[in-house]
């Protein structure tokens, strides 16, 4: 007997119309941006968005006339370094909070979490004073060191570690694995999915930084791509919108890659079979 009533056709149509409208609102600007990146600036300036003078000239210009490659390189370096550092330090601190027994563990973890309550904007002025005193302004370090670890990452991995069956640790104890071996050979591979998630999250977080690099970098040598993009706009008296759009499209690509690649891994069921 079929208890679930078939939805009415009118309902289905309405649902789809709503979904299409929402999709258009979300995707519209993105598609317009992508479209205009193929148009000559003259057409954009005239408001001739339906022009058919499509070409890759804007992209060629972006690579040849602007320091975009330098920006991309800077961002890539900063993002990868931040990601690796966060993966190492967050997983280590999460491991300590789960598998090491020490006094005031829960209190310290609470303190750790409390730092998540402070928005980054509130920390900007003291952080700026600190890095300035350390002489780190306008270097790569200034964009990496404040982000070596994160309370969120530690929290996320701690939750993930807590879900490991206790028997895995006991089995490892019987085999005589030390903490570092257990961390490296069992805890990390077991929590691969959480690590990938955190990796993607911290990479994109660093890639999309804007406020902090704007305050702490002054030259193209260290400027990451988001700020570089802004730079393209003001440096020239005449804004080459076509080229700026092309650059913006290039900047978005890594985000898309990370999401597409990530999606493949974020399926459930990878850890089935460890325990009944």
């Amino acid at each position, binding site marked *: 007997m079929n208890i679930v009533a078939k939805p009415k056709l009118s309902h289905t149509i309405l649902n789809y119309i709503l979904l299409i409208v929402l999709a258009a609102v979300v995707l519209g600007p993105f598609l317009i941006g992508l479209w205009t990146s193929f148009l000559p600036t003259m057409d954009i300036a005239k408001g001739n968005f339906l022009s058919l003078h499509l070409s890759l000239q804007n992209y060629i210009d972006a690579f040849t006339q602007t320091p975009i490659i330098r920006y991309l390189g800077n961002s890539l370096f900063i993002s990868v370094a931040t990601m690796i550092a966060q993966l190492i330090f967050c997983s280590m601190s999460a491991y300590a909070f789960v598998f090491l027994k020490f006094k005031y563990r829960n209190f310290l973890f609470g303190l750790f979490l409390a730092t998540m309550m402070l928005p980054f904007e509130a920390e900007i002025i003291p952080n700026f004073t600190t890095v300035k005193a350390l002489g780190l302004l306008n270097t790569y370090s200034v964009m990496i060191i404040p982000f070596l670890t994160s309370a969120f990452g530690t929290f996320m991995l701690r939750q993930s570690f807590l879900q490991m069956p206790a028997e895995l640790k006991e089995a490892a*104890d*019987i*085999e005589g694995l030390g903490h570092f*071996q257990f961390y490296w050979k069992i805890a990390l*591979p*077991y929590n691969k999915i959480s690590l990938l998630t955190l990796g993607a999250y911290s990479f994109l977080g660093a890639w999309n930084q804007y406020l902090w690099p704007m305050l702490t970098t002054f030259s193209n040598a260290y400027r990451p791509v988001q700020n570089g993009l802004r730079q393209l706009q003001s440096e020239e008296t005449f804004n080459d919108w076509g080229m700026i759009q092309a650059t913006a499209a290039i900047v978005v690509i890594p985000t898309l890659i990370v999401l597409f690649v990530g999606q493949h891994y974020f399926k459930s069921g990878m*850890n089935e*079979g*460890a325990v009944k």
Partner: protein
Amino acid sequence: MSITLRNIRKDYDQNTEVLKDVSVKVETGEFFVIVGPSGCGKSTLLRMIAGLTPITGGEVQIDDQVVNELPPKARKLTMVFQNYALYPFLSVWDNVAFGLKARKLDSADIKQRVDNALKMVSLTKLRKRKPRELSGGQRQRVALARAVASDAKICLMDEPLSNLDAQLRIKMRQEIYALQRKLGLTLIYVTHDQVEAMTMADHIMVLHDKHVQQIGTPSEIYQTPANDFVAKFFGTPQINILPAKRSADNDHILNVSSDLEIALNQPVPAENLKIGVRPDDFKIERADGVSSNAVVKNTEFLGNETIVYATMNSGSDIHVVVDGQVAFRSYEPVKVTASSKLLFFDQNGNRINLAKEALVHA
């Protein structure tokens, strides 16, 4: 390698005592089963032997060495867990090899041991699979192979079969027993299943209520249980425990819940006591309303035998196993008599030893 426990005690804090005064010697090559209802501390005891849980009091000795302070690795043992504890990201082969690699054995030696172990549990064909691609029984075999591959001569098992279905459990039971004998392992096996204990053990330890109730061979435990708890724990269907009194007129006559008189060949050992009658030691026959002393509630037909549930006139519920198929209607009056063997317990449930072998004339 033999294992000796001396007055082992475990408290989690001042007020929660889990185990008290556990002493036993497990001989080399022995299949030793720790059995008890859930929450009796049997897994805790196993973890103390393994070194995973600290010992509050007493001594654990392996061969001639007190190991209380030794880490698990130094105790040279292996453990098989209820939920297998396999590494999901490693293949079957690597799961078995993992511990050996951690112990930094020579790689040719590792290969030989792992291949042998997998062959012994017939998993050679599946060696490249991941645990998630195996069935429950196969996963359990991987866990066993880990124990087999290790050179440790002591193996601890914590309810290894309780996640398997009934058929598979019988099969794995036989495999575990065969492996233990073949490898000469000293095996300590924790279970809540009395059938596993009876079928595999050389010696059984019954734990209940923080205390060791009895240690003995399966037949000792079944035939001369230390108390009514042990008597009730072993044997299916459960033993009938009924209140009984010494008859005021004749001290050789036992009066069972005022429905049934049993004549003994010696004085009844106490005035008020409890008797235990195994379900197949009762006899049951149809009777008219005058001579009957019980009423049938219902019957369960099991193929080769039938379990009859009845209520004595005094209100005690009993169950009786009868060979073959018998048809009693519900509420049919019957006469119940006890045949041959009886167990006697005092008011606290401890078994009373009779002076002579009890010859009972019902």
